[in-house]
Protein backbone atom coordinates (compact mmCIF):
# COMPACT_ATOMS: atom_id res chain seq x y z
CA UNK A 1 0.00 0.00 0.00
CA UNK A 2 1.38 3.40 -0.87
CA UNK A 3 2.13 6.02 1.74
CA UNK A 4 -0.83 8.08 0.55
CA UNK A 5 -3.37 5.31 0.86
CA UNK A 6 -5.10 6.68 3.93
CA UNK A 7 -4.93 10.33 3.14
CA UNK A 8 -1.39 11.11 4.22
CA UNK A 9 -1.28 13.34 1.15
CA UNK A 10 -4.39 15.28 2.20
CA UNK A 11 -4.33 19.10 2.33
CA UNK A 12 -2.94 20.58 5.55
CA UNK A 13 -3.74 24.28 5.14
CA UNK A 14 -6.98 26.22 4.62
CA UNK A 15 -5.80 27.32 1.20
CA UNK A 16 -5.04 23.74 0.13
CA UNK A 17 -8.37 22.53 1.54
CA UNK A 18 -10.30 25.20 -0.38
CA UNK A 19 -8.36 24.40 -3.52
CA UNK A 20 -9.28 20.73 -3.15
CA UNK A 21 -12.98 21.19 -2.37
CA UNK A 22 -14.41 24.41 -3.86
CA UNK A 23 -13.95 23.44 -7.57
CA UNK A 24 -15.82 20.18 -6.89
CA UNK A 25 -18.64 22.12 -5.21
CA UNK A 26 -18.81 24.56 -8.15
CA UNK A 27 -19.12 21.63 -10.56
CA UNK A 28 -21.87 20.10 -8.39
CA UNK A 29 -23.85 23.36 -8.32
CA UNK A 30 -23.45 23.79 -12.10
CA UNK A 31 -24.67 20.22 -12.67
CA UNK A 32 -27.65 20.70 -10.34
CA UNK A 33 -28.74 23.91 -12.09
CA UNK A 34 -28.25 22.39 -15.54
CA UNK A 35 -30.38 19.36 -14.63
CA UNK A 36 -33.13 21.73 -13.44
CA UNK A 37 -32.95 23.70 -16.72
CA UNK A 38 -32.83 20.54 -18.87
CA UNK A 39 -35.99 19.25 -17.22
CA UNK A 40 -37.95 22.01 -19.01
CA UNK A 41 -36.57 21.12 -22.45
CA UNK A 42 -38.97 18.68 -24.16
CA UNK A 43 -36.95 15.53 -24.86
CA UNK A 44 -39.70 12.94 -24.51
CA UNK A 45 -38.48 9.83 -22.76
CA UNK A 46 -34.97 11.20 -22.48
CA UNK A 47 -35.74 13.86 -19.86
CA UNK A 48 -35.53 11.41 -16.97
CA UNK A 49 -32.53 9.64 -18.54
CA UNK A 50 -30.68 12.97 -18.80
CA UNK A 51 -31.44 14.02 -15.23
CA UNK A 52 -30.42 10.60 -13.90
CA UNK A 53 -27.16 10.77 -15.87
CA UNK A 54 -26.44 14.17 -14.30
CA UNK A 55 -27.30 12.74 -10.85
CA UNK A 56 -24.86 9.88 -11.48
CA UNK A 57 -22.13 12.37 -12.44
CA UNK A 58 -22.78 14.29 -9.21
CA UNK A 59 -22.60 11.08 -7.21
CA UNK A 60 -19.22 10.23 -8.77
CA UNK A 61 -17.89 13.71 -7.90
CA UNK A 62 -19.06 13.44 -4.28
CA UNK A 63 -17.77 9.85 -3.98
CA UNK A 64 -14.37 10.44 -5.50
CA UNK A 65 -13.51 13.85 -4.03
CA UNK A 66 -15.55 14.17 -0.82
CA UNK A 67 -15.80 10.53 0.23
CA UNK A 68 -12.11 9.96 -0.44
CA UNK A 69 -12.47 7.18 -3.01
CA UNK A 70 -9.59 8.69 -4.93
CA UNK A 71 -7.25 7.38 -2.24
CA UNK A 72 -5.54 4.28 -3.64
CA UNK A 73 -6.76 2.02 -0.84
CA UNK A 74 -8.18 -1.29 -2.15
CA UNK A 75 -10.27 -1.98 0.99
CA UNK A 76 -11.88 1.45 0.84
CA UNK A 77 -12.63 1.19 -2.86
CA UNK A 78 -14.03 -2.33 -2.56
CA UNK A 79 -16.31 -1.40 0.33
CA UNK A 80 -17.22 1.86 -1.38
CA UNK A 81 -18.20 0.11 -4.58
CA UNK A 82 -19.78 -3.13 -3.32
CA UNK A 83 -23.26 -1.62 -3.15
CA UNK A 84 -23.17 -1.09 -6.93
CA UNK A 85 -22.99 -4.85 -7.46
CA UNK A 86 -25.90 -5.62 -5.10
CA UNK A 87 -28.01 -2.78 -6.39
CA UNK A 88 -27.22 -3.98 -9.92
CA UNK A 89 -28.63 -7.42 -9.05
CA UNK A 90 -31.72 -5.83 -7.55
CA UNK A 91 -32.40 -3.57 -10.53
CA UNK A 92 -31.65 -6.30 -13.09
CA UNK A 93 -34.07 -8.73 -11.45
CA UNK A 94 -36.82 -6.14 -10.91
CA UNK A 95 -36.74 -4.90 -14.48
CA UNK A 96 -36.22 -8.33 -16.05
CA UNK A 97 -39.39 -9.41 -14.26
CA UNK A 98 -41.21 -6.29 -15.32
CA UNK A 99 -40.19 -6.49 -18.96
CA UNK A 100 -41.09 -10.16 -19.35
CA UNK A 101 -43.99 -10.79 -16.98
CA UNK A 102 -45.88 -7.51 -16.61
CA UNK A 103 -47.51 -7.51 -20.08
CA UNK A 104 -48.93 -10.98 -19.30
CA UNK A 105 -49.91 -10.53 -15.66
CA UNK A 106 -51.10 -6.91 -15.86
CA UNK A 107 -52.30 -6.39 -19.44
CA UNK A 108 -54.57 -3.51 -18.43
CA UNK A 109 -51.52 -1.50 -17.39
CA UNK A 110 -49.33 -2.57 -20.26
CA UNK A 111 -48.24 0.55 -22.15
CA UNK A 112 -48.64 -1.27 -25.47
CA UNK A 113 -52.29 -2.04 -24.82
CA UNK A 114 -53.40 1.31 -23.48
CA UNK A 115 -51.41 3.28 -26.02
CA UNK A 116 -49.73 5.37 -23.35
CA UNK A 117 -46.78 7.50 -24.22
CA UNK A 118 -43.92 5.22 -25.18
CA UNK A 119 -40.23 5.88 -25.59
CA UNK A 120 -37.70 4.34 -27.96
CA UNK A 121 -38.22 0.67 -28.72
CA UNK A 122 -41.82 0.75 -27.56
CA UNK A 123 -40.75 1.02 -23.92
CA UNK A 124 -42.49 3.56 -21.75
CA UNK A 125 -40.69 6.87 -21.35
CA UNK A 126 -37.89 6.30 -18.86
Amino acid at each position, binding site marked *: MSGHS*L*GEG*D*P*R*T*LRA*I*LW*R*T*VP*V*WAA*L*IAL*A*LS*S*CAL*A*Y*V*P*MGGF*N*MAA*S*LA*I*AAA*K*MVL*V*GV*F*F*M*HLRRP*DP*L*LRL*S*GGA*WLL*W*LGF*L*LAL*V*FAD*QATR*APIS*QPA*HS*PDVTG*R*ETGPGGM*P*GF
Partner: protein
Amino acid sequence: MSGGEALREPWESLRRQREAAGFGMWLFLNSEALLFGALISAFFATRFFHPQGFAAGGREAEIVYGTVNTLVLLTSSLTMAMASFATRAELRRVSFWSLGLTLALGVVFLGLKIMEWRSDLEKNMFPGPGFPIEQPGAALFWGFYWALTPLHALHMIGGLSTVGFLTWQAARGKRPLRSPAFEAAGLYWHLIDVVWIFLYPLIYLQGRASS
Protein backbone atom coordinates in the same frame (compact mmCIF):
# COMPACT_ATOMS: atom_id res chain seq x y z
CA MET B 1 -3.05 17.35 20.42
CA SER B 2 -1.30 14.05 20.01
CA GLY B 3 -2.47 11.04 18.11
CA GLY B 4 -2.36 9.07 21.35
CA GLU B 5 -5.46 10.83 22.63
CA ALA B 6 -7.40 10.00 19.50
CA LEU B 7 -6.30 6.36 19.49
CA ARG B 8 -8.79 3.94 21.03
CA GLU B 9 -8.57 0.26 21.87
CA PRO B 10 -8.12 -2.24 20.27
CA TRP B 11 -6.14 -0.49 17.55
CA GLU B 12 -2.37 -0.30 17.58
CA SER B 13 -2.11 2.80 15.45
CA LEU B 14 -4.29 5.73 14.47
CA ARG B 15 -3.79 4.72 10.87
CA ARG B 16 -5.37 1.31 11.44
CA GLN B 17 -8.15 2.89 13.48
CA ARG B 18 -8.84 5.35 10.69
CA GLU B 19 -8.97 2.54 8.15
CA ALA B 20 -11.37 0.53 10.36
CA ALA B 21 -13.64 3.55 10.91
CA GLY B 22 -13.85 4.18 7.16
CA PHE B 23 -14.43 0.51 6.39
CA GLY B 24 -17.12 0.14 9.05
CA MET B 25 -18.91 3.25 7.90
CA TRP B 26 -18.80 2.11 4.28
CA LEU B 27 -20.36 -1.23 5.23
CA PHE B 28 -23.20 0.68 6.90
CA LEU B 29 -23.51 2.97 3.88
CA ASN B 30 -23.84 -0.11 1.66
CA SER B 31 -26.92 -1.15 3.62
CA GLU B 32 -28.27 2.39 3.36
CA ALA B 33 -27.68 2.40 -0.40
CA LEU B 34 -29.70 -0.81 -0.66
CA LEU B 35 -32.52 0.61 1.47
CA PHE B 36 -32.91 3.67 -0.73
CA GLY B 37 -32.01 1.69 -3.86
CA ALA B 38 -34.90 -0.72 -3.21
CA LEU B 39 -37.35 2.15 -2.72
CA ILE B 40 -36.11 3.91 -5.85
CA SER B 41 -36.37 0.72 -7.93
CA ALA B 42 -39.96 0.32 -6.62
CA PHE B 43 -40.55 3.92 -7.73
CA PHE B 44 -39.40 3.13 -11.28
CA ALA B 45 -41.24 -0.19 -11.36
CA THR B 46 -44.49 1.63 -10.52
CA ARG B 47 -43.72 4.49 -12.87
CA PHE B 48 -43.39 1.92 -15.68
CA PHE B 49 -47.16 1.35 -15.48
CA HIS B 50 -48.15 4.99 -14.92
CA PRO B 51 -45.76 7.29 -16.81
CA GLN B 52 -48.38 9.99 -17.29
CA GLY B 53 -49.74 9.77 -13.76
CA PHE B 54 -46.22 10.15 -12.36
CA ALA B 55 -45.58 13.13 -14.66
CA ALA B 56 -48.85 14.74 -13.50
CA GLY B 57 -47.96 14.08 -9.87
CA GLY B 58 -44.39 15.35 -10.28
CA ARG B 59 -45.53 18.63 -11.79
CA GLU B 60 -47.25 19.47 -8.50
CA ALA B 61 -44.07 19.01 -6.44
CA GLU B 62 -42.61 22.29 -5.15
CA ILE B 63 -39.62 22.65 -7.48
CA VAL B 64 -38.39 25.90 -5.88
CA TYR B 65 -38.09 24.29 -2.45
CA GLY B 66 -36.58 21.19 -4.02
CA THR B 67 -33.96 23.08 -6.02
CA VAL B 68 -32.98 25.44 -3.20
CA ASN B 69 -32.67 22.46 -0.85
CA THR B 70 -30.47 20.69 -3.41
CA LEU B 71 -28.13 23.69 -3.47
CA VAL B 72 -28.18 23.89 0.35
CA LEU B 73 -27.32 20.20 0.70
CA LEU B 74 -24.55 20.31 -1.92
CA THR B 75 -23.04 23.28 -0.06
CA SER B 76 -23.28 21.39 3.23
CA SER B 77 -21.30 18.60 1.58
CA LEU B 78 -18.62 21.17 0.72
CA THR B 79 -18.39 22.36 4.33
CA MET B 80 -18.43 18.77 5.63
CA ALA B 81 -15.60 17.82 3.25
CA MET B 82 -13.67 20.88 4.48
CA ALA B 83 -14.33 19.81 8.08
CA SER B 84 -13.08 16.33 7.32
CA PHE B 85 -9.78 17.67 5.95
CA ALA B 86 -9.47 20.41 8.59
CA THR B 87 -9.99 18.13 11.59
CA ARG B 88 -7.41 15.76 10.23
CA ALA B 89 -4.93 18.61 9.76
CA GLU B 90 -5.90 19.87 13.27
CA LEU B 91 -6.83 23.32 11.99
CA ARG B 92 -9.02 24.23 14.95
CA ARG B 93 -10.72 27.38 13.67
CA VAL B 94 -11.40 26.01 10.20
CA SER B 95 -12.71 22.78 11.74
CA PHE B 96 -15.23 24.49 13.99
CA TRP B 97 -16.34 26.96 11.34
CA SER B 98 -16.92 24.25 8.76
CA LEU B 99 -18.64 21.91 11.23
CA GLY B 100 -20.86 24.77 12.41
CA LEU B 101 -21.75 25.74 8.85
CA THR B 102 -22.54 22.11 8.04
CA LEU B 103 -24.92 21.94 11.00
CA ALA B 104 -26.52 25.27 10.09
CA LEU B 105 -27.07 24.19 6.48
CA GLY B 106 -28.57 20.90 7.69
CA VAL B 107 -31.02 22.82 9.86
CA VAL B 108 -31.88 25.13 6.92
CA PHE B 109 -32.55 22.03 4.80
CA LEU B 110 -34.93 20.60 7.39
CA GLY B 111 -36.65 23.97 7.89
CA LEU B 112 -37.29 24.32 4.16
CA LYS B 113 -38.49 20.72 4.06
CA ILE B 114 -41.06 21.40 6.77
CA MET B 115 -42.27 24.52 4.93
CA GLU B 116 -42.56 22.45 1.76
CA TRP B 117 -44.54 19.70 3.53
CA ARG B 118 -46.90 22.32 4.93
CA SER B 119 -47.47 23.75 1.48
CA ASP B 120 -48.06 20.22 0.08
CA LEU B 121 -50.61 19.46 2.77
CA GLU B 122 -52.39 22.78 2.19
CA LYS B 123 -52.82 21.66 -1.43
CA ASN B 124 -54.11 18.31 -0.13
CA MET B 125 -51.30 16.41 -1.83
CA PHE B 126 -51.73 13.35 0.32
CA PRO B 127 -53.12 10.17 -1.27
CA GLY B 128 -56.64 9.53 -0.03
CA PRO B 129 -59.97 11.40 0.06
CA GLY B 130 -59.78 14.82 -1.57
CA PHE B 131 -56.53 14.13 -3.44
CA PRO B 132 -56.76 16.64 -6.31
CA ILE B 133 -55.14 14.80 -9.27
CA GLU B 134 -57.34 12.38 -11.18
CA GLN B 135 -54.82 10.59 -13.40
CA PRO B 136 -54.19 7.04 -12.23
CA GLY B 137 -50.73 6.77 -10.74
CA ALA B 138 -50.44 10.35 -9.46
CA ALA B 139 -51.50 9.22 -5.97
CA LEU B 140 -48.87 6.48 -6.17
CA PHE B 141 -46.26 9.12 -7.00
CA TRP B 142 -47.29 11.10 -3.91
CA GLY B 143 -47.24 7.89 -1.88
CA PHE B 144 -43.57 7.55 -2.79
CA TYR B 145 -43.07 11.23 -2.02
CA TRP B 146 -44.40 10.79 1.51
CA ALA B 147 -42.30 7.65 2.01
CA LEU B 148 -39.02 8.93 0.59
CA THR B 149 -38.79 12.53 1.80
CA PRO B 150 -39.52 11.83 5.51
CA LEU B 151 -37.14 8.85 5.43
CA HIS B 152 -34.46 11.11 3.99
CA ALA B 153 -35.26 13.78 6.59
CA LEU B 154 -34.86 11.16 9.35
CA HIS B 155 -31.39 10.44 8.00
CA MET B 156 -30.69 14.15 8.04
CA ILE B 157 -31.71 14.30 11.71
CA GLY B 158 -29.34 11.36 12.34
CA GLY B 159 -26.55 13.20 10.52
CA LEU B 160 -27.20 16.42 12.45
CA SER B 161 -27.20 14.57 15.77
CA THR B 162 -23.94 12.77 14.97
CA VAL B 163 -22.07 15.81 13.67
CA GLY B 164 -23.54 17.96 16.47
CA PHE B 165 -22.43 15.49 19.15
CA LEU B 166 -18.90 15.18 17.75
CA THR B 167 -18.60 18.97 17.47
CA TRP B 168 -19.81 19.39 21.05
CA GLN B 169 -17.28 16.81 22.24
CA ALA B 170 -14.47 18.54 20.35
CA ALA B 171 -15.47 21.96 21.69
CA ARG B 172 -15.31 20.62 25.26
CA GLY B 173 -11.93 19.06 24.62
CA LYS B 174 -13.26 15.53 25.02
CA ARG B 175 -12.48 14.49 21.47
CA PRO B 176 -9.25 15.37 19.68
CA LEU B 177 -9.67 16.77 16.20
CA ARG B 178 -7.55 13.95 14.82
CA SER B 179 -10.23 11.44 15.78
CA PRO B 180 -11.26 9.35 12.74
CA ALA B 181 -14.89 9.84 13.83
CA PHE B 182 -15.09 13.17 11.99
CA GLU B 183 -14.15 11.56 8.72
CA ALA B 184 -16.61 8.69 9.31
CA ALA B 185 -19.41 11.15 10.14
CA GLY B 186 -18.48 13.00 6.95
CA LEU B 187 -18.99 9.83 4.91
CA TYR B 188 -22.49 9.50 6.37
CA TRP B 189 -23.26 13.14 5.66
CA HIS B 190 -22.20 12.75 2.03
CA LEU B 191 -24.42 9.68 1.70
CA ILE B 192 -27.41 11.80 2.75
CA ASP B 193 -26.37 14.20 0.02
CA VAL B 194 -26.01 11.44 -2.61
CA VAL B 195 -29.47 10.06 -1.77
CA TRP B 196 -30.93 13.54 -2.23
CA ILE B 197 -29.03 13.92 -5.53
CA PHE B 198 -31.17 11.05 -6.83
CA LEU B 199 -34.42 12.03 -5.13
CA TYR B 200 -34.24 15.49 -6.71
CA PRO B 201 -34.80 14.38 -10.36
CA LEU B 202 -37.24 11.65 -9.32
CA ILE B 203 -39.50 13.97 -7.38
CA TYR B 204 -39.06 17.49 -8.72
CA LEU B 205 -37.94 17.21 -12.36
CA GLN B 206 -40.66 14.77 -13.37
CA GLY B 207 -43.00 15.85 -16.18
CA ARG B 208 -41.79 19.47 -16.31
CA ALA B 209 -41.34 19.50 -20.10
CA SER B 210 -44.81 18.08 -20.83
CA SER B 211 -48.21 19.45 -19.91
